[in-house]
């Protein structure tokens, strides 16, 4: 992890520069990728899973997969989209497993979900907390695309690469997702009043 020390205090290089470094020193390139994306992927996993322990496991797994992926440092490989896609898929698989487990054992709490591991959501406004809570009511597709856009700050083109869908589909899916979110928020307001 020497490359980080060299670059400390400087902005991390672009993906293309990292790929160029990988041709000479894969270890240094791997270190740069980890530094560049680790926190963002961990945040993404925390938003979806709301559990630090599981989010850490997912982040680890994503980077291990990346290091084993032969094409990862190839010139035409979209590493950012790949990293977010794999993170998102792993997170949603865990959520699906949780749902299945809770359907079988409705009253038994999850053993790994200790209080210390639970993500403490601290948003600037109460409304943002409500928005994240409302996102739990959306379909997986809609929740996923909203998170990639607004929490991970991916552009529409990057989302299209990450989800392997067309740019037009990104636009229409986001439009529908926000429409659905608006309806859920309205319903929550009605219930709250």
């Amino acid at each position, binding site marked *: 992890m020497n490359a980080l020390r060299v670059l400390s205090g400087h902005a991390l290089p672009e993906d293309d520069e990292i790929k160029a470094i990988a041709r000479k020193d894969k270890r240094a390139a791997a270190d740069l990728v980890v530094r560049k994306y680790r926190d963002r992927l961990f945040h993404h996993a925390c938003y979806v899973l709301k559990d630090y322990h599981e989010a*850490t496991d997912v982040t680890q797994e994503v980077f291990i997969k990346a*290091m084993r992926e032969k094409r990862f440092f190839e010139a035409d490989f979209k590493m950012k989209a790949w990293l977010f896609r794999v993170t998102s898929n792993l997170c949603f698989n865990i959520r699906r497993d949780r749902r299945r487990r809770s359907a079988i054992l409705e009253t038994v709490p999850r053993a790994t979900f200790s209080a210390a591991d639970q*993500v403490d*959501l601290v948003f600037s406004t109460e409304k943002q907390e409500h*928005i994240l809570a409302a996102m739990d009511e959306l379909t997986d597709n809609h929740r996923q695309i909203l998170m990639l856009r607004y929490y991970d700050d991916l552009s529409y083109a990057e989302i299209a690469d990450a989800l392997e869908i067309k740019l037009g589909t990104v*636009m*229409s899916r986001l*439009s529908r997702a*926000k429409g659905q979110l608006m309806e859920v928020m309205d319903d929550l307001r009605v219930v709250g009043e």
Partner: protein
Amino acid sequence: MQCPWVQERLVAFADGELSPGEATWVAEHLESCDACAQLDLRLRDVTPEPGLEIPADVMERMARAVDDAVLAALDEPPAVETPTTAARWGRWLRRDRDLSNGAMLAYGILLAACVGWGVSNWLVVQELRQEVQRSPVAATAPTNSATIDSTQYEPASYQPEQREENWR
């Protein structure tokens, strides 16, 4: 511009992801259409904003865990590849030969044509056999000499009576 067309693009408009031309059309429409302008405001109001604050010790623990995992993955010996069936066939066909992909393709087509020709012939034979089984009398050639009328095969020049006369 039609309202449904604009409403489909309101989110992309707010995110700054529309082309300049489309963004101008949407902006002009919003100035003249109250319903779409209202919807635009409501959609903007439910825009999620990142605001997760994760304690520093959690981030440190996560960073250490990820770094260790990545280092371990980098130190792993490279996995031994098991070739696919297609790759194994390709290697077998190319053994000791320097063939290009085009030559391999032509070879494959020729091989397939030969096999196809053989199969079609076999099918024809099968069809004939079935026909024989359906009508054996018509299709079977006479093989037993006892069943053949001997006069049928006598040559026209053979006249035993004349020969007998000459002897006398």
